[in-house]
């Protein structure tokens, strides 16, 4: 008899029975619909034990790596400890601010001491909660193998409660509660020969630059192409750092883009989405990552898909601002997914 632990409660799985059937027989209510491994309503995560391969068929790579599986087609052949995915936040705990460093016009790099149990992948984001309960999400700008610290880039948003606090009041030594990580914009390493195309606005370039460095360190063989968009040139706050790297890394190319400016060499002027779409024929085998302003990210995702890029090769992290856009967004996001309550990171 196979034993099953679900959120701390014990169940037994009869021969031939699926995890979903066993849990339901034990009185649990698990969301499910197709019961045949297609709709992904019954997604769970295995904390201990190996699930049969067919229970992960069709799942996105990141979910596979996190040991997520579909309960309705999982007939386990060993004991499993599983948790519901909604509650499966990998880390939650206090993080101490070690430094606050200004970058460019209006961005602050906030560096935290990294707890040993906090694991993440380049490109993901964390939610930070202040003592009074105010919480916002920010993308991680550092790499997973920097084990002592991790950092985020916070852009000052007028009337943004958390960003104003970071920019004006936060002190070295202050502690916030961090939980996460979350987010799909990660380098999976499954398609090393083809381009990695990174498109960001504002501080969207922070997680993308981390993702680019991760790809380059992982011996990515295809090109790594960054489109960094901002309203004006002086807001391209990582431009010098990325361009310096690009001069001696032939695989890395960096395209600074601004909406309006006089034409000059090395600067792309115009609508960022259109600039990217014009390059699609040369990049059509690539994997696309989009981070930043939802007004860019959401429509560009659809346009890239219609231009022939498979949906599984487009990863998007729209930086939803805390109010009132988040209220609108939350209505359109399924309950399975946490709503990223961000200021424009």
């Amino acid at each position, binding site marked *: 008899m196979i034993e099953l632990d679900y959120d701390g409660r014990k169940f037994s799985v009869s021969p031939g029975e699926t995890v979903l059937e066993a849990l339901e027989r034990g009185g649990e209510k698990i969301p499910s*619909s*197709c*019961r*045949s*491994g*297609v*709709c*992904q309503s019954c997604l769970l995560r295995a904390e201990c034990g190996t699930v049969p391969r067919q229970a992960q*068929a*069709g799942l996105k790579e990141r979910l596979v790596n996190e040991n997520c599986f579909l309960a309705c087609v999982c007939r386990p052949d060993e004991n499993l400890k599983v948790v519901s995915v909604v509650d499966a936040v990998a880390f939650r705990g206090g993080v101490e601010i070690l430094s606050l460093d200004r970058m460019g016009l209006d961005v602050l790099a906030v560096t935290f001491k990294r707890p040993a149990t906090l694991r993440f992948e380049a490109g993901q984001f964390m939610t930070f909660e202040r003592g009074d309960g105010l919480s916002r999400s920010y993308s991680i700008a550092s790499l997973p193998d920097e084990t002592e610290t991790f950092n985020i880039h916070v852009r000052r948003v007028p009337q943004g409660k958390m960003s104003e606090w970071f920019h004006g009041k936060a002190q070295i030594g202050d502690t916030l509660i961090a939980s996460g990580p979350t987010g799909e914009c990660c380098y999976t390493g499954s398609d090393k020969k083809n381009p990695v195309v990174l498109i960001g606005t504002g501080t969207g370039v922070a997680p993308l630059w981390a993702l680019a460095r991760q790809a380059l360190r992982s011996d990515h063989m295809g090109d790594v192409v960054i489109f960094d968009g901002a309203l004006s040139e002086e807001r391209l706050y990582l431009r010098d750092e990325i361009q310096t790297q690009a001069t001696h890394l032939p695989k890395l190319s960096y395209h600074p883009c601004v909406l309006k400016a006089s034409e000059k060499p090395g600067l792309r002027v115009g609508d960022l989405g259109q600039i990217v779409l014009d390059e699609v024929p040369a990049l059509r085998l690539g994997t696309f990552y989009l981070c930043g302003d939802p007004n860019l990210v*959401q429509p560009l*995702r*659809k346009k890239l*898909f*219609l231009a022939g890029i*498979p*949906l599984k090769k487009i990863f998007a992290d729209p930086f939803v601002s805390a109010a009132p856009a988040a209220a609108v*967004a939350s209505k*359109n*996001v*399924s309950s399975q*997914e946490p709503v990223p309550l961000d200021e424009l990171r």
Partner: protein
Amino acid sequence: MKNMFEALGGEAAVEAVVDTFYRKVLLDERISHFFEDIDMERQRTKQKAFLTMAFGGPHSYTGKDMKVGHAHLVKMGLNDSHVDAVIELLGASLSDHGISQELIAQVAAVAESVRDDVLGREASPKS
């Protein structure tokens, strides 16, 4: 008939066809508004479930599931002409991927079999 899912290429074929089909519906003015969803992954997953069913693949949707799942679209005005368009685009997508007309007709017949449930009607005599 029983092995139509395998004859069409199974899971891999569904994966290949689903993006083509999703693009066609998003670009089709007759029906695109029923498929607009800010969460494109979720929308794609639904369409994959539909194609799997239409291919005669594994699923356990009941008529009630179909009714409940489409009730909000019926409120938006979903009618026979929209179902016709979906079946037409499904056929065109399969054709793009080199599926024979004979198999396409079988897929269309499966899709046709859920028409009344999707539209929230009692089964009509012909089905």
